[in-house]
């Protein structure tokens, strides 16, 4: 059985193959390759690349269509709402990603060390809130954060929150959004991480145990390095999703009686520029800002952890 991270053995080419038949095979393989990816390529071009290129074009032009260089970036960057929006998101992301690394992996390792049936029940329970991601999860948490109806009212009482308005004060939002993201998103990642752990050959774990490794050592020295690729994958995607925060501040803002800024997150700011100010160029500039952050982070993770080591 192949593990997730094992290197592929190169295709054994028969030594009796003549060079000609090898080349033929390669060419045939090439045409087939194009056929397999062509449909996806069209979707990629139309709904991935074209809009991205369009966003970049918009970001460097004025509403009248003139090339204006970095002007849109400078003007949006100097906007008084710009920095706070990015600070908000940075604070939220640091809490959310840290909890992913520590808690999600910790829970997955625990689940992997107990019996399969029991762990299946836990995984299901942890995953269940994933069904409420997005608007539904925000609604549920508006209930949870409202001390007048919340089942956690005792807990909220510790912080002396008397009504919803006090719980969702702007300063509390990064941690609240991290809790919502964790509640709705962690289960899915636990399932994925557990799946990756499951793919580790048993012999490896047994060998470690024979060599005297305890559960902790097996987890840290054998299991963790073997699922590194999936952890990277998780962090990249969670970061990407995290920078997109839109529905959470939007809906919580709806319930805050105007206490929370309608431009709390960068995406809200971009939306505001686009639909309140009718300035798609400013909106595109912020979109490109987010894009660059996401790409830089991805590049660092991809090149540092060799995500493509299956080659």
């Amino acid at each position, binding site marked *: *059985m192949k*593990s*997730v991270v094992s290197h592929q*053995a190169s*295709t054994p080419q028969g030594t009796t193959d003549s060079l000609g038949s090898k080349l033929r095979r*390669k060419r*045939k*393989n*090439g045409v*087939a*390759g194009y*056929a*397999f990816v062509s*449909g*996806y390529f069209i*979707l*990629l071009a139309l*709904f991935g*690349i*074209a*809009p*991205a290129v*369009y*966003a970049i074009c*918009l970001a460097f032009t004025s509403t009248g269509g003139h090339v204006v260089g970095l002007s849109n970036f400078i003007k949006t960057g100097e906007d008084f709402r710009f920095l706070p929006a990015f600070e908000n998101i940075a604070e939220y992301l640091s809490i959310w990603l840290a909890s992913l690394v520590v808690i999600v992996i910790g829970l997955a390792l*625990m689940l992997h060390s*107990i019996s399969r049936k029991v762990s299946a029940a836990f995984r299901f*329970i*942890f*995953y*269940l809130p*994933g*069904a*409420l991601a997005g*608007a539904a999860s925000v*609604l549920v948490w*508006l209930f*949870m954060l409202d001390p007048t*109806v919340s089942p956690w009212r005792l807990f909220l009482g510790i912080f002396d929150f008397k009504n919803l308005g006090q719980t969702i004060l702007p300063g509390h939002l990064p941690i609240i959004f991290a809790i919502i993201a964790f509640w709705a998103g962690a289960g899915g990642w636990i*399932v994925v991480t557990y*799946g990756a752990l*499951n793919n580790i050959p048993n012999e490896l774990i047994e060998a470690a145990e024979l060599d005297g490794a305890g*559960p902790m050592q097996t987890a840290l020295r054998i299991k963790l390095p073997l699922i590194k690729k999936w952890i990277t994958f998780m962090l990249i995607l969670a970061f*990407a999703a995290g920078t*997109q925060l839109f529905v959470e501040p*939007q*809906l919580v803002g*709806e*319930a805050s009686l105007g206490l929370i800024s309608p431009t709390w997150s960068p*995406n809200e700011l*971009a939306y505001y520029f686009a639909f309140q100010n009718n300035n*798609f160029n400013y909106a*595109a500039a912020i*979109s*490109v800002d*987010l*894009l660059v952050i*996401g790409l830089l*982070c*991805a590049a660092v993770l991809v090149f540092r952890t060799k995500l493509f080591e299956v080659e």
Partner: protein
Amino acid sequence: MRIFNRVWSRTLSYIVLLAFTAFFMVPVIWLLFSPFKTDHQLVTENPFALGTLENLGHAVRVMFTFEDYSLLNWLKNSAIYSFGGIAIALIFSIPAGYGLAHTQFIGRRTLLGVTLFVMIMPATALVLPLFLEANSVHAVGTPLSVILPFSFFPFGVYLAYIFYSSSVPKDLLAAARIDGCNEWNVFRRIALPLARPIIALVTFFAFVANWNNFFLPFVMLPNSTNYPLPIGLQDLLSTTPAFNPGQGGQVGIYRPELAVATIVAMAPVMIVFLFAQRSLVSGLLAGSTKE
């Protein structure tokens, strides 16, 4: 000593797991209980006190008949957008993942790299440009303006690629070729049947992503008859006096009714999860060749 350690770590594991069980489940249980109570009871009674079926009936009736059965309409819209997007995404992403993993062609690495980057790229960064794109072909407000962007699902391609490159041995495919299969048949007879867990995984992630997507339909669909459920929920939230005391109570949407709408919104994803669960974690490939 070792056995002692093992018992300790196991006990500790269970304590932590149970604590998180409470964290994850209490909101769901509360949500399921709340439509059985009146708004007043939710405030005054124990959070887990049982309500009555009568209250449930009332909340369901009010919620479903609200604005001429809007909830059912949103549900229908969500289903059309989500499944339309998934169907197209699956048709293209499974062969693409296979092609990227097991065939050689010029531009393969580039396509792989672009896929990864587009997948990581915040999808919302493309929402406004997609809106302009749709606008230029007069597609704004149509179901296709949401379905087609949904059908582009690079995460699915990447999952399929990871699966095929790490869990389907090249030897297996080479064996099929030696037995006389052409490239299409290798894919159809060997790779595709093996892909069942990955099809479940892609369907599942695409469904959750589509069903819960907020920003794209929010921008693309200005008309409330086209709303999918998440936008519908926001609509409810903005009109309910439960969170906006300034709003008049004439719409009759209070917390129990909101809970009904939320349950309706989450139920399909839960049902899909129940079906996908088995193949989701069954270990991607249980030994078709031994190394």
